[in-house]
């Protein structure tokens, strides 16, 4: 297999001195589906907004984002505009506010077609109609004249997907694409994303706080915590046997159908990015914390093929999912910023 389609190395993002992403690495291959999970504030969306240079100017971004041979963080603005929507498309959480309320669907979809496919006039209408058909919007021709407020949330997200497909991208980044939608609609949108992937062989990054969504739709999963990837593994392996205590906690917090049990919450809250705990960021909430955890931020290490874990005790822990264990108090020196 050729090299990865997109490769992120040592990505760091800070807002006004507060780090939001603290060194993220991963690679996505052509046609692959990578899930990224984590609580809000874990940096999962910011990572990709930074990669596409969609963050406000005050955000300080460091690292390297390679798309084939180009570093997206350094290419000229015009080149970046060409790549955005053309090779890497992104869809967002709340489709109702992600579409412009005063412009018709035709105008918003047509813009992308004119930019990336060089279409104009009649051919825009024909292609826009084809895309709306593809994403399963009934009466596509009539819908082109509609405004976003005339359609449901699910239909708007279909329009967003159609818009993302307009440039025939190699990678689609879906940032919580179903969070704002009803449960039944969620499933339809996820099915649509799978269908589109099969038909276009496009790679997909699915950002979600919902482990279930990611488990069903992705080949590989990266778990993020406090601006870092803490575990990355094939989806099945991760759910069967999580190796990082945080990933284990996330899975324990998930209800199961086959063996009903009490759900276990992870105690505590995500640390304030301005006042990170010493050593491992998860250690204050971790049931397995040991003095070794304060010895520095744990590296993301490859423990077995296809599996990386950032935990100082990764080799020695035998995690039992759904075990109720309170966090361990360890003597820690005063936290400095």
């Amino acid at each position: 297999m050729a090299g990865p389609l997109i490769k992120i190395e040592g990505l760091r993002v800070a807002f006004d001195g507060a780090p939001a992403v603290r060194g993220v690495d991963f690679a996505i291959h052509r046609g692959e589906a990578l899930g990224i999970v984590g609580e809000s504030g874990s940096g999962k969306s910011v990572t990709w907004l930074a990669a596409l240079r969609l963050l406000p100017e005050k955000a300080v971004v460091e690292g390297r984002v390679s798309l084939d041979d180009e570093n997206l963080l350094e290419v000229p603005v015009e080149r970046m505009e060409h790549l955005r929507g053309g090779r890497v498309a992104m869809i967002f959480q709340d489709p109702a506010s992600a579409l412009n309320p005063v412009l018709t669907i035709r105008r918003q979809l047509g813009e992308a077609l004119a930019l990336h496919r060089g279409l104009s006039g009649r051919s825009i209408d024909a292609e826009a109609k084809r895309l709306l058909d593809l994403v399963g919007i009934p009466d596509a021709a009539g819908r082109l004249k509609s405004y976003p407020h005339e359609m449901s949330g699910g239909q708007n997200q279909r329009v967003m997907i159609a818009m993302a497909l307009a440039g025939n991208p190699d990678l689609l980044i879906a940032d919580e694409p179903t969070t704002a939608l009803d449960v039944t609609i969620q499933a339809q949108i996820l099915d649509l994303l799978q269908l589109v992937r099969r038909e276009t062989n496009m790679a997909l990054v699915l950002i979600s706080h919902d482990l279930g969504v990611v488990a069903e739709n992705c080949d590989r999963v990266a778990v993020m915590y406090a601006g870092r990837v803490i575990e990355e593994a094939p989806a099945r392996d991760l759910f069967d046997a999580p190796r990082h205590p945080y990933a284990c906690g996330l899975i324990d917090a998930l209800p199961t159908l086959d063996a009903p049990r009490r759900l276990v919450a992870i105690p505590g809250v995500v640390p304030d990015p301005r006042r990170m705990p010493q050593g491992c960021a998860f250690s204050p909430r971790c049931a397995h914390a040991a003095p070794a955890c304060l010895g520095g931020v744990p590296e993301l290490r490859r423990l077995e093929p296809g599996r990386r874990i950032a935990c100082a005790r990764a080799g020695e822990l035998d995690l039992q999912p759904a075990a109720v264990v309170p966090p361990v108090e360890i003597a820690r020196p005063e936290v400095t910023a």
Partner: protein
Amino acid sequence: MIRYLATRLLRAALTIALVVTFAFIVLRLSGDPATIILGPEAPPEAIEAFRHNWGLDRPVLVQYFDYFRAILRGDLGISMRDGRSAIELVGERIPATLALTIPALLLQLAIGIPAGVYAALHQGKGFDRAVMVTAVFGFAIPSFVLALALVLVFSVNLGWLPSGGRDSWMHAILPIITLGLGGAAALARFTRSAMLEVLGRPFIRTASAKGLPWAAVVRGHALPNAAIPTVTLVGFLVGSLIAGAVVVESVFSWPGVGRLLVVAVSNRDLAVVQCLLLLVAASMVTSNLIVDFLYGVLDPRLRHGARAGA
């Protein structure tokens, strides 16, 4: 859209009727025109005759309904001062006022909107700060103070421009600047905040994610949305221009309707004052109607909401 406009039109007519009623009541309460026009030493018979001639001795309610009927016929009465029709007196002053207010409005739009948009796009930079500081001054300074300051600088010290009267286009420059500057400042501030609000909305990020160049995002996506609240302010500005004309025309001895209003009020020239109030109310109501119409054009949500009967 039709229904939306019809309700607005009905509301406008009602507003004008209320203004007419209000004007009638206030002017009747504010003193007897007979004594003011004829003077306090006038013999009682003369005052009596004056009141009879002008119908002021009839019951107030009868006067009110007569007056309303006359307005509907287009008859706005006769000036108690010089006996000419009020409409004629007011009408001949209108061009002079328009010669100030229209350029002042254009000045406000030409300065306020570009300055506000530019400031929003360069938030926190030097130009933005300069615009905001200037805007606070422009907004806070009363127009008569600004008028006197401008006269002091450009007429008295530099001698470039005349300080009053209406003999050439040069005479219009200072009044137009005085009239327009405050509104331009308000518009700049408002446009800036409207733009900033819109630029923070998620669809701006969507447009960028599509690969649109930033200039196209601003032009095609941000401006049409920021225009909606800005149009409201422009409607208010038209109203304040009319109010501002009263002060500015007095300071610069400009023979427009504003100065006529000052004179007519101090003379208790009822017909003229009523006619002017009607004119002011009509222009306010018209500018609001235009604003409502523009809303419908700019915002499809409103257009369709109205069609659905909301």
